């Protein structure tokens, strides 16, 4: 009997050990997290009401200060000013960014002010800085009027769901944590986590700067130029999605026949391809398509040409610039380039320059012509 009891107890111990050794269950954590980060919003009422009750007196002080500010400074915009005295009280909690009316100005006093957009972003306005939310909804935008702010953003599958604009410079989030400081006519950006894109607010045709983790940049207030340190790069081309365009060249004026054997001299806006005239071969002796060597020599000329355009049409202020694109050329039977497509597209100025150069390029004659694509890495 005691042997049986002992063995049962041993069996129980063994089962306990086995159960303890079972690995923790693996759930679809991304799904659980996504649901969780959505659902807490439905239970925030009690939390925010508690916070609201704590902030009642500071809020009244804010309202009074706001009223003064509205009268004296900004008659048309809803204004909430965090006065220095009130800031000390507000800083212990976080302002609910989702409840801020668009255009509400926030000015930090001697202490920083935290603004929280539930489940999306948290930004800290550093002492004496002023900012306001200019765009709510899916894509948040904070306008930094003076001083500095740091932001920590929940990663989102959609890019640029959070952006800070300082003057004409837009700093859009591709990652999680960064700091923007508006200092005179400069905008200083430091990236701690993830990636941000810095570009002009008004146009997407200028270069955009990509700053990655542990890099920093110093930009002009219009966002069109700047210098970067660390793991950063400049992307030339449209920052905004733009469908690639097929550029037809056949509509241009008739071109003289050019050979493709000589290297291109891509200088200036209209690079010329050094060429030797060739006589059109008799039709009966033509191959169906140009030979590989004919194609490749033409491609190398096209690449030289494109690199020349890239060098001449981009401005990188002493830093290395690179761009990748797929170039598709359609070559007619008479060896002329009928159309060209860049995907993703290059800056319009670079493309226009390339088109002018490609008009002078001629491949070997063939019956059917050829269409081919090459991936290009352009640097300057």
């Amino acid at each position, binding site marked *: 009997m005691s042997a*049986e009891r002992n063995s049962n107890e041993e*069996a129980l111990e063994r089962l306990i050990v086995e159960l303890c050794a079972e690995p923790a269950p693996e759930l679809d954590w991304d799904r659980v997290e996504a649901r*969780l980060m959505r659902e807490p919003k439905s239970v*925030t009422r009690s939390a925010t009401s508690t916070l609201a009750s704590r902030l009642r007196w500071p809020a009244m002080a804010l309202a009074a200060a706001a009223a003064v500010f509205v009268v004296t400074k900004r008659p048309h915009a809803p204004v909430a000013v965090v006065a220095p005295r009130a800031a000390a009280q507000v800083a212990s909690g976080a302002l609910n960014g989702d409840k801020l009316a668009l255009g509400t100005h926030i000015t930090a006093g001697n202490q920083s002010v935290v603004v929280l957009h539930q489940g*999306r972003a948290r930004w800290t306005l550093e002492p004496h800085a002023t900012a306001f939310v200019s765009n709510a909804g899916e894509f948040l935008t904070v306008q930094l009027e003076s001083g500095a702010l740091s932001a920590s953003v929940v990663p989102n599958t959609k890019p640029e769901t959070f952006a800070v604009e300082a003057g004409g410079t837009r700093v859009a989030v591709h990652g999680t944590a960064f700091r923007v400081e508006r200092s005179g006519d400069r905008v200083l950006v430091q990236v701690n986590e993830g990636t941000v894109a810095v570009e002009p607010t008004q146009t997407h045709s200028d270069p955009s700067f990509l700053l990655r983790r542990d890099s920093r940049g110093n930009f002009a207030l219009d966002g069109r130029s700047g210098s970067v340190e660390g793991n950063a790069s400049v992307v030339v081309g449209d920052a905004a999605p733009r469908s690639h365009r097929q550029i037809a060249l056949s509509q241009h004026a008739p071109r003289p026949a050019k050979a493709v054997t000589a290297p291109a001299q891509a200088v200036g806006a209209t690079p010329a391809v050094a060429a030797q005239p060739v006589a059109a071969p008799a039709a009966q002796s033509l191959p169906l398509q140009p030979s590989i060597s004919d194609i490749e020599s033409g491609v190398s000329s096209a690449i030289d040409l494109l690199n020349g355009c890239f060098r001449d049409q981009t401005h990188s202020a002493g830093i290395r610039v690179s761009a990748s694109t797929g170039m598709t050329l359609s070559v007619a039977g008479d060896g002329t380039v009928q159309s060209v497509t860049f995907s993703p597209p290059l800056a319009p100025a670079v493309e226009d320059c390339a088109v002018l150069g490609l008009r002078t390029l001629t491949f070997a004659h063939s019956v059917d012509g050829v269409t081919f694509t090459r991936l290009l890495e352009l640097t300057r």
Partner: protein
Amino acid sequence: MTELTELIERCKAGDGLAFREVFRNHRADVARLVQRMTGRPGDLEDLVQEVFLQVYRSIKDFRGQSRFSTWLYRVTVNVVLMHRRAAKSRPVLQDAPEDGFGKDLRDLPDDQVARSRRVAAFYRLLDRLSDKKRAVFVLHELEGLSPTEVAKVVSAPVLTVRTRLFYARRELLEMLKEEPALEFVARELLAESGAEPLAEREST
């Protein structure tokens, strides 16, 4: 201020990023405890989510008088017990899989299949314990909490915890005889010790 304390303070201020950090740091522990408490894979995800929703709702009540892990254990145990009570009043549409805690056993080696079946059988035994006994047994024997810590989690005197542990073990030992998948464990151990196997003793 420790990193965890800072995270908790930020959670209390409604910081979603801090809450996400807490979730990521503790989700595996919570999932494991829920699994051990319920023994059923079907509700696991919903229960884990419910636990963290409760954490979100009530973290402002956490005053740091106990360790955060102890408080989290208490929230988890309460969520599971509430769920079980609610489940008792609902019709059972589908039982948990018989073998291997929801695993597909077809491609597993024999010893792993046997092991999975033992684990599933043991969960069935745990499921037959009362809620209070199962909670203290899981917390002490499987999670490794001391009786004092268990007492804090279940809000009961330490002596009560020890008593529940004693009876939980005794009931499990009795139930071992009734589970075919577990019986051979005892049989093997008996064979190693030279004693008469259980089944043969019972048949004589």
